[in-house]
């Protein structure tokens, strides 16, 4: 959450192994109260205390938005990542107390749409599970196209098919199945909105194909959370706070700022929302931009950095924080 917002103290009540890579977690409030309301597509930021390192990872809420007794998320284990998902998989057990942020939605449904076309790749299915519950309750028209590597990794496919019948279309890469995107897009009635969540390549393919076929930008929605990349350690001077911090290899610049006790704004922690944008006052070296918020021109101009995912390599970095 951005500066000042209060975290919600929760208890983990369920940890379910969905398949060999994915675990599902359920959180309820420590005080037994209702969770804040949210709409399909929202995420929460889960705070972890990983052996002294504070990690904050954003996960889409997958539970039914109408159900306020708890939140559910699914986490895919990333063995080569910085450790957030490994922490969730290895250390989070039922009964554990944690802090999570109130929900934020950067991937909401446009309810003026005549029809909602949802396209998911892999773990990108999670926001759609909440969205479909919402759409179904509203009696809105929707269709899900969900691709996964194989049957084992296609989390929730069977449940979703059972719940929504032929509105769910499944594709397995290993069986040579792929979404026939041009045909799918060509047949959509006017007023359809398209939503895509999945790996970077899939998002680019879907948005590019739709744009080329004349779909207006206002009807296209996507969400991709980047995990902050691991990189070389570097130091940064925080001009406003008057301190110099060091950023570890498996730490993001934002995490290092926070670890130094400086409050910094954020929403997605994945380079998508723009909330953490910070001015660069001096950079003797190279800014390693990893976000998809700044335009290419802005990135080249080196005047701004997104500390949640971007890094630095060089002699000296001064930012306005």
């Amino acid at each position, binding site marked *: 959450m951005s500066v000042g917002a209060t975290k919600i103290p929760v208890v983990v009540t369920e940890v379910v192994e969905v398949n060999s890579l994915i675990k599902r977690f359920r959180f309820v409030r420590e005080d037994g109260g209702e969770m804040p309301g949210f709409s399909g597509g929202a995420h929460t930021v889960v705070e972890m205390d990983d052996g002294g390192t504070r990690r904050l990872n954003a996960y889409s809420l997958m539970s039914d938005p109408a159900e306020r007794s708890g939140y559910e998320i699914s986490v895919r284990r990333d063995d080569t990542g910085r450790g957030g998902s490994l922490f969730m998989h290895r250390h989070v057990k039922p009964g554990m107390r944690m802090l999570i942020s109130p929900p934020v939605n950067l991937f909401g449904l*446009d309810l*003026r*749409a*005549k*029809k909602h076309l949802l396209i998911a790749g892999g773990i990108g299915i999670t926001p759609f599970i909440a969205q479909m519950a919402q759409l179904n309750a509203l009696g809105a028209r929707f269709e899900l196209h969900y691709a996964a590597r194989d049957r084992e990794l296609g989390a929730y496919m069977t449940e979703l098919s059972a719940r929504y019948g032929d509105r769910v279309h499944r594709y397995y890469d290993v069986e040579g199945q792929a979404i026939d995107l041009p045909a799918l*897009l*060509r*047949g*959509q*009635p*006017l*007023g*359809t*909105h398209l939503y895509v969540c999945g790996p970077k390549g899939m998002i680019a393919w879907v948005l590019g194909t*739709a744009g*080329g*076929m*004349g*779909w*207006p*930008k*206002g*009807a296209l929605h996507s969400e991709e959370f980047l995990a902050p990349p691991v990189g070389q350690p570097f130091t940064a001077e925080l001009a406003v706070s008057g301190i110099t911090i060091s950023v570890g290899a498996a730490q993001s610049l934002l995490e290092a700022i926070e670890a130094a006790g400086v409050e910094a704004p954020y929403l997605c922690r994945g380079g998508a929302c723009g909330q953490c944008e910070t001015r660069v006052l001096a950079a003797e070296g190279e800014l390693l931009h990893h976000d998809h918020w700044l335009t290419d021109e802005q990135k080249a101009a080196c005047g701004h950095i997104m500390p949640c995912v971007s890094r630095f390599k060089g002699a000296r970095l001064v930012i306005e924080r």
Partner: protein
Amino acid sequence: MQTQFDTTMRSRPRYGVLEPRPGLAHLIVADGEGGEAVLALFAQAPELLETARVIYMPGANGTDMTAELEAVKPAQFSRVPSYAAGRQRIVKVLGDAHMGLQVYVTGTEGLMGQVQRDAMEAGLPHDAVQTEHRGSLVRRVQCVHCKGITEHVRTDPFQCGHCGLNLFVRDHYSRRLAAFQGVCVDAEDPGEVPPAVERFK
């Protein structure tokens, strides 16, 4: 020529210049001098002609470019006497269309506002309709008293075509109605009506 606007009014929608965009089909609606913008669009991208459906109505001032438009042979061409007369057809085209349809509207403000409204009702986002203002600046005005809409208003004040009140044309545009607002000028002193000035040519 594109129309020049004074830029002081904030609720007035902004219009652009029609540009060809990729699409599976192209719906083009124009009135009066808007016909010129349609010809300019086809000159730029003749391939649009193959899938273009043009719906054209002559202008309030009598400008009728039907012959010129028919001569370039769009896939489908229809001439309708007014938007009211053509609306059902346009709504049907939108209702039957698929995503990938491009919508272009050019001509008077009243026409553009009404097509935009109908396209949004059909579910298209606001950014999906391209507009280009051509020709007359006559306004479509709704009387705030009787709710009647008077088309092609040239002067300010003017007399409401429905209830007959003398209305002052406010620079307030409603997207939902695709109309400006008209408010009675002589409510306090009936009969005290300033002389009408031709403000919208």
